[in-house]
């Protein structure tokens, strides 16, 4: 039940970005490659030095130890990383047995070797790995970039369902206009050093 608020955040070429993401709401950010979408997410996750403030409700980013902040505001990068040999080692015990069906994996996936995963499979597993941590806000960097059309629709629907059910505040970097129409409560586009509001329901 938390609201994510950016107050005059500056990182890289982006200057003084302010926006709010309500609990259970999705704010999409689009922009040309290299415009600083990912860096903005990284600043919100406090992975990069930046100016301005970020709040989760009344909690300011700097008031928590960085790893505590990142447990509550989890970023999922476009290219997820896997450092153990087996899939299951990356998950907490209970998360191994509660893998959602919508992600389209057979029951044995936790025993698979990471090396046999396709990029799409990694992407879907990374979503579950992050959600299973029970965060309050999600930072998604093109979460369906490596998925085919059917899988994109399924993952999108599942994500939206989880977002509403868990009341997550979500910043979602996307480039596909169709996807933005389907998932976004608000849509901002990066233009130069500013964030430009495109549309959305107030």
């Amino acid at each position: 039940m938390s609201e994510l608020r950016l107050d005059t955040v500056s990182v890289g070429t982006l200057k003084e970005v302010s926006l709010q993401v309500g609990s259970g709401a999705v704010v999409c950010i689009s922009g040309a490659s290299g415009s600083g979408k990912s860096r903005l997410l990284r600043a919100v996750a406090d992975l990069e030095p930046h100016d301005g403030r970020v709040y989760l409700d009344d909690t300011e980013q700097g008031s928590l130890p960085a790893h505590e902040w990142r447990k509550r505001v989890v970023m999922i990068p476009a290219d997820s990383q896997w450092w153990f040999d087996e899939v299951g080692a990356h998950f907490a015990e209970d998360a191994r047995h509660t893998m959602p069906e919508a992600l389209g994996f057979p029951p044995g996936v936790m025993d698979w070797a990471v090396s046999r995963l396709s990029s799409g499979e990694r992407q879907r597993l990374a979503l579950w790995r992050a959600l299973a941590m029970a965060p309050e806000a999600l930072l998604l960097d093109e979460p369906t970039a490596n998925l085919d059309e059917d899988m994109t629709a399924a993952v999108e629907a599942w994500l939206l369902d989880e977002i509403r059910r868990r009341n997550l505040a979500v910043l979602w970097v996307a480039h596909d206009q169709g996807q933005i129409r389907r998932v976004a409560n608000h849509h901002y586009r990066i233009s130069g050093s500013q964030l430009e509001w495109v549309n959305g329901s107030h």
Partner: protein
Amino acid sequence: MEVIDLAWWKLGLAALLVLALAGVSLWARLGITRSLLIASARTGIQLALIGLVLEALFASARLYWIALLATVMLLVAGREVMARQQRRLRGIWAFGIGTGAMFVSSFAVTVLALTVIIGPSPWYAPQYAIPLLGMMLGNTMTGVALSLDRLNESVWHQRAVIENRLMLGQTWRQAVEDIRKDAMRGGMMPSINAMAAAGIVSLPGMMTGQILAGSPPAVAVKYQILVMLIITVGTGFGALMAVSWGSRRLFDERERLRLDRLVKVGK
């Protein structure tokens, strides 16, 4: 037993052999002739100079002269540690961390060995202090350099993994835990291997030297065991400190991976 002194002109004979090797490598275009000659000349000059320094030092045996020589040795070793890292921390850190780790470990272990184990009088007697410290520094230097190089290189290559682990709420320690272990192992392996091979595969140089100088092998062997043990201890603690200080510096107070603090040099 009297030690046979070597006349300088006899060393010239050995130098002639080096020249022969240089000639062959020039003919075979190995491309190492230049560095071979320079290194041989450096060996001759550096060791001749240190011989003079040691002669003077042994004659005076004052603590401040010994401390001065020890400081110079430490600083040179610190510079060497820095030079052996392909990616190093910016600013004073690369030198500071390596030198600091070597200072704490080498000096502490050497002083301990001198005062508690060997017990010459005075405890800083140069005949014991300087060779012991020299061997400690030489090996600690290798260990610290190897472990820091491994640390920085692995962090650089695995930056995406480290950041992904941070994104999932891990502390910076958890995120580099494997790399730290690996770097420490890398720094300590040479001394562990040397201990394992000692006496069977290799006759350690110090012991050999002592025997050449007329010591009974039984005594030389005891010194060699002592030296290998304390070298391993010094190298281990040195690598441990260097890796923990070095990895701390790669993250800032917000546990962000700060690769901008690394700079690549050479090659």
